C-alpha cells in the first residue's frame, strides 16, 4: 500500500513527510509502544504505529530504517519530535484513532 492510502484511512495529520511521500510503498506494519520491540523488527518498507509520543519513538523508527511513524491515540506531537523527523527525513503522522482501531483500518487495506 502507499503512504497516502494510510494517511487517508487514518485521517492523519501530517507533521512531516519526505518529498514524494504519497507514493512511498509500505509492506509491513509494526504496532508497539515498546521501543525495545521496535528495535527487534527488521523489515523493509516498514511503518511503525505507536502511542508512545516521545523523541525516542522517532529515533527508534529511524534506527531500524522505518519509512514512517504514526502516533496514535490522539497524542500531542512535540516540536522536538517534528524536528527529529525532519532531520531523519522520516514521515511523521498523528491520528485520533487508538492503536487498535488504526491497526484494523490498515489491516483492511492490506486485505487481512
Amino acid at each position, binding site marked *: 500500500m502507499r503512504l497516502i492510502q494510510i494517511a487517508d484511512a487514518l485521517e492523519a495529520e501530517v507533521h512531516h513527510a519526505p518529498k514524494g511521500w504519497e507514493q512511498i510503498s509500505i509492506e509491513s506494519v509494526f*504496532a508497539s*509502544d*515498546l521501543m525495545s520491540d521496535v528495535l527487534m523488527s527488521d523489515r523493509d518498507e516498514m511503518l511503525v504505529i505507536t502511542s*508512545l509520543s516521545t523523541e525516542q519513538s522517532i529515533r527508534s523508527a529511524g534506527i531500524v530504517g522505518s519509512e514512517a511513524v504514526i502516533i496514535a491515540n490522539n497524542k500531542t506531537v512535540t516540536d522536538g519530535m517534528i524536528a527529529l523527523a525532519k532531520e531523519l527525513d522520516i514521515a511523521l503522522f498523528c491520528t485520533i484513532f487508538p*492503536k487498535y482501531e488504526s*491497526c484494523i483500518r490498515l*489491516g483492511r487495506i492490506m486485505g487481512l
Partner: protein
Amino acid sequence: MKISDIQSLEGFACLQGEYTDTQVQDGYTSDLLSDVMAHAEEDSVLITIQAHKNTVAVSSLVGVVAIIVCSNRPATDDMLEAAREEGIAVFQTDGNQFQTSSLIAQHLASCPAR
C-alpha cells in the same frame, strides 16, 4: 465472541485458563499501562507485549477480561499467578500486535456480542 473462542484461533496458546467465559465486547492494543487505564473499555481484550504483573493489575482495574501476549513473549510466573487470582484469561500468540488486532477485530465482527 466468547473468551474461549480466542483459544481456538490459530497460533494461540492459553497460559491462564481459570476464568468465567463471558462475551468479549471490544479490543484494545497497547503497551502503555497508563493508556490502558485511561481508555480500555469494560469486557475488552487487551493486546500487548507487556507480559508482567502490573498488566494484570491495570486490566483488573478497568475490567479487561482477557490479555493476549503477542510475538510469543514469555509471561512471568507472577503475572500468571496474579491473573489466576483475578480470573483474567491470558493467551499467547506468535502474531504481532498489528496482525493480532486485525484478527480479533474480524472475529468480533463475525460473531458480535449480544
